[in-house]
C-alpha cells in the first residue's frame, strides 16, 4: 500500500531543494524561490472544478446547434426526459426569463450594436455550438446519451463567415439589428493626411490575424452547489474572474449578489478564454436553483472548441508614411475585427485595447486608427493572450520591416532610427500614452550579441548566393506593450464596464503567521509565491510563514481578478502597500511595548528596536501576539494589525523587449524550422526571475504557434473544420525550439515596486519575429507576404507561385512621392536599391496582388 503523502512532507521536500531557502530578514524579492503552488500540483492533490462533487449532484449536458445559422422552429425534450437517469430537460424558451442575456461589459461606442445573447438559444442559432437545450441526469454518461433523444427542427439560414462579406449586410446575423456592423471606433493623433502628403514613401499592407482557439489545458467546468432553503449559491467555475463573475451573475439572473459565492478552485490555464460570463455558468446557476440540487457541467475538448471564446480574427489594412532616409512620419490603421455571432464579456473592446499600441516604440508624428467590429456566424471572440496588443505589434513590426526592405535599409537600423531613445523617457506617444521608462538600446544590444546577428546575416547571404535548398531568414520584433490594464478613470473614458484597481488585505495571526488576501485570481502565474516574497520583504517574516488566500469571493471578497498582465503591477503592489501599512500599525504597538516614542522606532529584518538602544527590541511576531492579547496596548488603538490596500494604477506599465528569430526554410517543401530564438525582455524590477522566465517561455510558445501552426478554420457553411486537437495544431515539445532568454531591468516609475507585467509579453513579441523571418528566408524568390500560419504549403506556394500562399492575398502597394493629389513636397521616388529590396515588388501587380 502506497504510503499517503501529506502536503507538509511534500512542501518540505520542495523546500529542501530550494537552495535559496533563506532566514527571515534576507531579501526575497529578486530570488528564484521555488513555488509554493507546486506541492499539490506535482502529486495530483488538486481541486480542478471537475474534481468537485457534492451529495446528490447531477450532471448537465448541453445540446448544441450543428448549424451555423438557423431558425429554431421546434425543440422537443419530452423523449429526453424519459431517458434512464434523466431528472430534467429544458429548452431555451422554458428558461429564457430566468436566464436573461449574457453580458457584454464594454459598449465601446454609444451606438454599439449589442444583441441579446440567450444562454440557451430561443428562436435562432447563430454559430455552430450555440446551445439549444439542456439535460440534467444522475451521471455524466446518461446526460450525454439523453442529448440524442432531443428533437430539434431547424430552418436553415445562410451563414456568413467572411467579414468583408458580412459588411455587405446581405446576410444578417442579427436580423433585428439591420446590420452586421457592431461598431466603428475611430481614433486620431496628429494629422495623418498631412504626414502622408509630405512623405517620400507610403507603404500599404494587408495582414490577416487568423482566428485562434486559446486551448487552455483544462476544459471548462462549472459546479453549482445551492442551499435551496436559504437561496444561497456557491458556484465553482474554471474562471479567471471570480469577482467579476459574481457581480455579473447577480446582474444577469437577479439573484442577490450577497447570496452568491464564486470560487475559482484550481484553474488550469485561461489565457483570456476564461475571462467571461459563460452560458454554462448562468445555466448551471438557474438549473441548480430550479432543481435545488448541486449541478455539474464539464465540457469535452471538441465541445469547448465551439463553445469557448476564440481569439484574434482581424483584417488589418496598414499604411505607413516615411521619408526616403527612413524616418517614419505617419501610420494609418484600418481594422476589421470579427466579433463572432455575439458579444461576450469583452468581445467588442479587445481590438480597442490594441488601438494605442500600433505606433509602438516609434516616434510617429501622426496616427490614424479605425476599427470596425463585425458580426459573423462563428463562435464569439474575446480576449486571448495579449488581447489586441499582439495584433497591434504584429502589424507595426511587420510593416516596419517591410519598410526597411523597401528602403534598402537594415531592419534593425530602421528601428534604431525611429525608436524612443532612452534619454527621452518619459515619452508621450502620438496615441496619447505616456511611456514611463524604457531602454530599447540596452535590450537590443544584448539581444543582437546573444543572437549573433551579423554572423547570421553573413550566413544568409552565403546560402542565398549558393542557392542552397535550405535558406536562412531573420526576423525582428522590438515590442512594447501596455499592461496592468489601466487606471480606472481611463477605463471609464473608454466605456469599459469595470475599474482597474486591485485589493489586498494582510492579516497578522496571533502566532506571527501571515495571511495575504489578494483580489487577483492566479491560474498558473505563481502569485502565491510572488506575493509571499513581496510580503516577506516588507514584514520581515519568513517566506514560509505566509499564506496567500485567493480565488474565493467569500475568503477574498474584493478584487478585479487576473488578465491583461495586471496582477503584479496592481495586485502585487497592493500587497506591498498593505504590508507597509501593517508595519506602520505595528510600529505604534512596538513603541508602546518598548515604551519609546513612535518616531524612535526602527524596523529591520522583522525586528522593531529603539534607535540608540539596540537591546530594546521586539519582533513582529511578538507584536502580533501582543495585539491579539491586547493587554498591554496603545490607548485608543483598535487591537488589530490587519490592513487593506486598494491600488488604482496611475498609468499602464510598459514592458518592452527585443526578439530575434532565425529560421531555416526547406525551399523544396516549404517546411519551416526555427533555428534560433533569442529575446531580451525588460519587465522592470523582477520579483522572481524563474517565474518571469517561465512566463516568457510560455508566451513565446503561443506566439510561435500563431506564426506557424494554429488556425481556427471555418468552411463557407460556418462549420468549424478544425474541431478537435487532431486538426487544430497546438505544438508539442518537438515543434518548439529552445529559447535563449535574457533581461534588462529598467524599473517602472508608476508603482513603488518598479514592476511591469510579463504574462503576455512573449506572445505579443514573437509572432511577427517568426513570420518576418520566414518571409526573409524566401524573399529572393519574390515573396513579399505569407499569410499566417506559415504552413509548409503556403510557403511552398509563395515561393513557386508568388502571392501570399493563401486565399486572401495581402495587397501590397507602394506609392511614390506624395500619394495624395494634394501633395505639397512630393519629392522624387526612392531608388530601388539595396540587396534586400524585393526585385519585382514595385507596383507591377505580380507579387502580393489581390488575386
Amino acid at each position: 500500500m502506497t504510503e499517503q503523502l501529506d502536503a507538509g512532507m511534500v512542501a518540505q521536500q520542495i523546500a529542501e531543494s530550494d537552495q535559496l531557502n533563506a532566514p527571515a530578514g534576507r531579501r526575497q524579492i529578486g530570488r528564484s524561490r521555488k513555488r509554493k503552488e507546486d506541492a499539490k500540483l506535482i502529486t495530483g492533490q488538486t481541486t480542478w472544478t471537475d474534481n468537485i462533487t457534492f451529495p446528490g449532484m447531477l450532471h448537465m449536458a448541453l445540446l448544441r446547434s450543428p448549424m451555423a445559422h438557423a431558425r429554431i422552429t421546434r425543440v422537443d425534450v419530452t423523449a429526453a426526459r424519459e431517458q434512464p437517469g434523466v431528472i430534467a430537460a429544458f429548452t431555451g424558451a422554458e428558461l429564457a426569463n430566468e436566464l436573461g442575456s449574457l453580458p457584454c461589459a464594454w459598449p465601446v461606442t454609444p451606438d454599439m450594436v449589442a444583441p441579446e445573447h440567450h444562454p440557451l438559444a430561443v428562436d435562432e442559432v447563430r454559430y455552430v455550438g450555440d446551445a439549444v437545450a439542456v439535460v440534467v441526469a444522475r451521471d455524466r454518461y446518461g446526460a450525454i446519451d439523453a442529448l440524442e433523444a432531443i428533437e430539434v427542427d431547424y430552418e436553415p439560414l445562410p451563414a456568413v463567415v467572411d467579414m468583408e462579406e458580412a459588411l455587405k449586410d446581405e446576410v444578417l446575423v442579427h436580423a433585428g439589428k439591420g446590420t452586421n456592423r457592431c461598431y466603428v471606433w475611430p481614433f486620431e493623433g496628429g494629422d495623418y493626411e498631412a504626414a502622408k502628403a509630405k512623405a517620400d514613401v507610403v507603404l500599404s499592407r494587408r495582414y490577416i490575424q487568423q482566428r485562434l482557439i486559446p486551448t487552455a489545458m483544462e476544459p471548462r467546468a462549472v459546479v453549482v452547489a445551492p442551499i435551496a432553503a436559504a437561496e444561497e449559491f456557491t458556484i465553482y467555475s474554471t474562471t479567471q474572474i471570480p469577482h467579476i463573475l459574481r457581480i455579473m451573475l447577480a446582474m444577469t439572473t437577479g439573484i442577490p449578489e450577497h447570496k452568491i459565492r464564486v470560487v475559482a478552485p484550481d484553474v488550469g490555464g485561461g489565457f483570456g478564454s476564461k475571462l467571461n460570463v459563460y452560458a454554462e455558468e448562468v445555466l448551471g446557476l438557474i438549473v441548480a436553483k430550479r432543481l435545488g440540487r448541486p449541478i455539474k457541467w464539464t465540457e469535452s475538448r471538441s465541445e469547448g472548441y465551439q463553445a469557448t471564446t476564440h481569439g484574434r480574427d482581424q483584417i488589418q489594412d496598414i499604411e505607413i508614411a516615411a521619408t526616403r532616409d527612413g524616418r517614419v512620419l505617419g501610420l494609418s490603421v484600418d481594422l476589421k475585427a470579427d466579433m463572432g455571432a455575439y458579444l461576450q464579456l469583452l468581445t467588442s473592446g479587445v481590438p480597442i485595447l490594441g488601438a494605442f499600441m500600433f505606433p509602438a516604440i516609434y516616434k510617429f508624428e501622426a496616427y490614424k486608427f479605425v476599427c470596425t467590429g463585425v458580426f459573423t456566424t462563428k463562435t464569439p471572440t474575446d480576449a486571448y493572450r495579449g488581447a489586441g496588443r499582439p495584433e497591434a505589434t504584429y502589424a507595426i513590426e511587420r510593416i516596419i520591416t517591410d519598410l526597411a526592405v523597401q528602403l534598402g535599409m537594415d531592419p534593425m537600423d530602421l528601428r534604431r532610427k525611429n525608436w524612443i531613445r532612452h534619454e527621452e523617457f518619459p515619452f508621450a506617444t502620438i496615441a496619447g500614452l505616456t511611456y514611463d521608462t524604457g531602454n530599447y538600446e540596452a535590450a537590443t544590444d544584448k539581444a543582437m550579441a546573444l543572437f549573433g546577428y551579423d554572423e547570421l546575416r553573413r550566413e544568409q547571404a552565403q546560402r542565398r548566393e549558393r542557392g542552397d535548398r535550405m535558406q536562412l531568414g531573420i526576423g525582428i520584433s522590438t515590442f512594447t506593450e501596455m499592461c496592468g490594464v489601466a487606471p480606472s478613470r481611463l477605463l471609464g473614458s473608454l466605456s469599459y464596464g469595470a475599474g482597474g484597481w486591485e485589493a489586498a488585505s494582510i492579516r497578522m495571526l496571533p502566532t506571527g503567521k501571515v495571511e495575504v488576501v489578494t483580489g487577483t485570481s492566479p491560474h498558473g502565474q505563481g502569485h502565491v509565491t510572488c506575493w509571499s516574497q513581496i510580503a516577506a520583504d516588507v514584514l520581515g517574516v519568513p517566506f514560509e510563514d505566509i499564506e496567500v488566500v485567493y480565488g474565493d469571493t467569500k475568503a477574498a471578497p474584493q478584487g478585479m481578478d487576473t488578465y491583461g498582465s495586471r496582477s503584479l503591477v496592481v495586485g502585487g503592489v497592493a500587497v506591498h502597500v498593505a504590508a507597509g501599512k501593517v508595519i506602520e500599525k505595528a510600529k505604534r504597538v512596538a513603541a508602546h511595548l518598548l515604551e519609546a516614542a513612535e518616531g524612535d522606532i526602527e524596523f529591520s529584518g522583522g525586528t522593531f528596536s529603539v534607535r540608540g538602544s539596540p537591546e530594546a527590541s521586539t519582533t513582529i511576531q511578538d507584536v502580533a501576539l501582543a495585539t491579539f492579547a491586547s493587554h498591554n496596548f496603545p490607548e485608543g488603538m483598535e487591537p488589530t494589525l490587519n490592513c487593506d490596500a486598494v491600488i488604482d494604477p496611475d498609468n499602464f506599465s510598459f514592458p518592452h523587449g527585443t526578439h530575434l528569430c532565425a529560421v531555416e526554410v526547406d525551399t523544396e517543401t516549404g517546411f519551416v524550422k526555427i533555428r534560433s530564438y533569442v529575446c531580451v525582455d525588460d519587465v522592470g524590477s523582477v520579483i522572481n526571475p524563474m517565474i518571469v522566465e517561465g512566463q516568457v517561455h510560455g508566451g513565446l510558445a503561443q506566439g510561435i504557434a500563431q506564426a506557424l501552426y494554429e488556425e481556427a478554420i471555418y468552411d463557407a457553411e460556418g462549420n468549424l473544420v478544425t474541431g478537435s486537437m487532431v486538426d487544430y495544431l497546438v505544438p508539442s515539445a518537438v515543434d518548439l525550439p529552445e529559447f535563449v532568454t535574457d533581461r534588462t531591468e529598467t524599473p517602472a516609475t508608476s508603482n513603488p515596486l518598479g514592476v511591469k507585467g510579463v504574462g503576455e509579453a512573449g506572445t505579443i513579441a514573437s509572432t511577427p519575429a517568426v513570420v518576418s523571418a520566414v518571409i526573409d528566408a524566401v524573399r529572393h524568390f519574390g515573396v513579399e507576404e505569407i499569410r499566417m500560419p506559415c504552413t509548409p504549403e503556403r510557403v511552398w506556394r509563395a515561393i513557386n507561385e508568388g502571392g501570399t500562399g493563401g486565399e486572401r492575398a495581402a495587397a501590397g502597394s507602394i506609392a511614390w512621392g506624395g500619394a495624395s493629389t494634394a501633395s505639397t513636397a512630393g519629392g522624387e521616388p526612392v531608388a530601388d536599391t539595396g540587396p534586400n529590396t524585393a526585385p519585382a515588388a514595385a507596383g507591377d501587380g505580380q507579387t502580393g496582388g489581390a488575386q
Partner: protein
Amino acid sequence: MPRVRMKVDGITYDDEVEPRLLLAHYLRDRLGQVGTPIGCDTSNCGSCIVHLGGHSVKSCSVLTVQADGAEITTIQGLAQNGRLHPVQRAFADSHALQCGYCTPGMIMAAVDLLAENPSPSADEVRHGLEGNLCRCTGYQNIVKAVQAAAAELGAPTVPAATQEVPA
C-alpha cells in the same frame, strides 16, 4: 455488467462497470482518484497518462474492462514511502509547471521515458514527450527537469514492468 478487479496506487478494487466506461472516468468518478485529469477527447493531450502494467498509457483511450487484472499507478501513487519521485521533485526545482493541469500526465510520461531511456538528450526528451501537450511552459523547463531527474536517477535501475497485462 462485466466485473473488473485491479490494483490502483497499491489498493485493489473490485467493481461492476459498463463496458464503455473509460479508465480515466473509472479512476476519477468511481475510485475518486481525481489526481489524473482529462484534457481532450482525441487522445492528443496526454494529461490523463497513467502507468498500466508498467507502461504509460492514455487512460482516456483505455476501457476499464481492458484494464481488468492490471496494476495501475497514477500520479497520486508515484511517490514512495512518503518521498517524492525524482521526476516530481525535478519538476518543482526546474519550474516545469505553471497551471499544473498537464503535469500529472507529463510526469508519468517522463517517468516512463526515463525507464526506457535513462540518459536522454534534450531532443530525445522532446520526442519522448510528444504525446503530452502543455500550454503554459513552452516545454523548455520540462526538458530541463527530465534531464535533471535522469542525472539524479543515475544508472538504469528502473522499476521493471510489473504484471504485464495482455490487453
